[in-house]
């Protein structure tokens, strides 16, 4: 399979959401084999299909004043925040070309993230039952039994939708540290968890262009697909 790469830069959520629907329809009608949308978003909160609105901790009018829109969308999962400094990937892939298995697809997305972090010397982990990628505490003496969702920090989130076995929505990875404070607007994924970012761990600046290149390379490697062109 081949995919067309859409590198949008920094965009409003609504624009990328509409683009995903357009690309989805093209994959569905066969005019496009697949697509990968890479972008950053202006501040936005999205609610997944089963989200609890109480997990937004700031009043609607305060969010409006700050220019942070809230969208109820069709992905799985609870509430999440997106903003500049996060890299977002929305794969529009036909899983009939891979494996018709939601669990397997979610694990592959985690593999993409873990592989990307590894290139920066950062060990991302899975935590069973909690989709996403987590960072273990630095206290190496902490036993495995002592590790739980409260001792781990979340660095990447996943929320997807699948129609006709074609995927949309996807993953977000926290890269830059300047925007992390806005996570306090929400209870991420409906959980009381710590959020971290790549720069917090590497203690140095990370270029978003480098992140994009590595991310695309990991998608190609893990899904065994070719990038067709950039749009």
């Amino acid at each position, binding site marked *: 399979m081949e995919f067309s790469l859409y590198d949008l830069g920094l965009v409003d959520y609504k624009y990328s959401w509409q683009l995903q629907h357009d690309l989805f329809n093209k994959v569905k009608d066969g005019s496009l084999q697949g697509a990968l949308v890479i972008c950053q978003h202006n501040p936005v909160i999205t609610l*997944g*299909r*089963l989200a609890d609105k109480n997990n937004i901790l700031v009043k609607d009018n305060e969010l409006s004043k700050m220019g942070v829109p809230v969208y109820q969308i*069709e*992905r*799985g*999962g609870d509430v999440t925040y997106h903003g500049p400094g996060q890299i977002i990937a929305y794969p529009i892939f036909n899983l009939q070309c891979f494996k*018709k*298995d*939601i*669990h*397997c*697809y*979610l694990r592959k997305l985690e593999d993409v993230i873990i592989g990307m972090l590894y290139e920066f010397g950062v060990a991302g982990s899975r935590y069973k039952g909690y*989709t*996403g990628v987590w960072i273990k505490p630095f206290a190496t003496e902490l036993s495995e039994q002592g590790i739980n969702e409260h001792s781990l920090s979340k660095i990447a989130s*996943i*929320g*997807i*939708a*699948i*129609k*006709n076995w074609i995927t949309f929505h996807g993953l977000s990875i926290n890269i830059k540290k300047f925007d992390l404070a806005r996570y306090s607007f929400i209870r991420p994924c409906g959980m009381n968890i710590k959020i971290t970012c790549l720069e917090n761990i590497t203690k140095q600046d990370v270029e978003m262009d480098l992140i994009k290149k590595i991310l695309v390379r990991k998608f190609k490697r893990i899904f065994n697909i070719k990038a067709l062109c950039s749009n």
Partner: protein
Amino acid sequence: MTNVVLPELGENIQKAIVSYWYLQEGETAQEKDDLVEIATDKATFNLPSPCAGIIREIFFREGDSVNIGETLAVIEEKK
């Protein structure tokens, strides 16, 4: 009558939650129309109508948990 069954969605997925019915009892579905959306913890999945016909009965409402292999609805096929 055709049963609309929750299919295998992948390894380790035994159940899901009905998150949205696109059509209601008594309404007519075309084959492959979006019929029902189900959700796992991080994914939503649209189940299309397996045939054209009238939706005679829906067994699970939005918010209900349903096991893989269970019947979600029954459709009376168009002759």
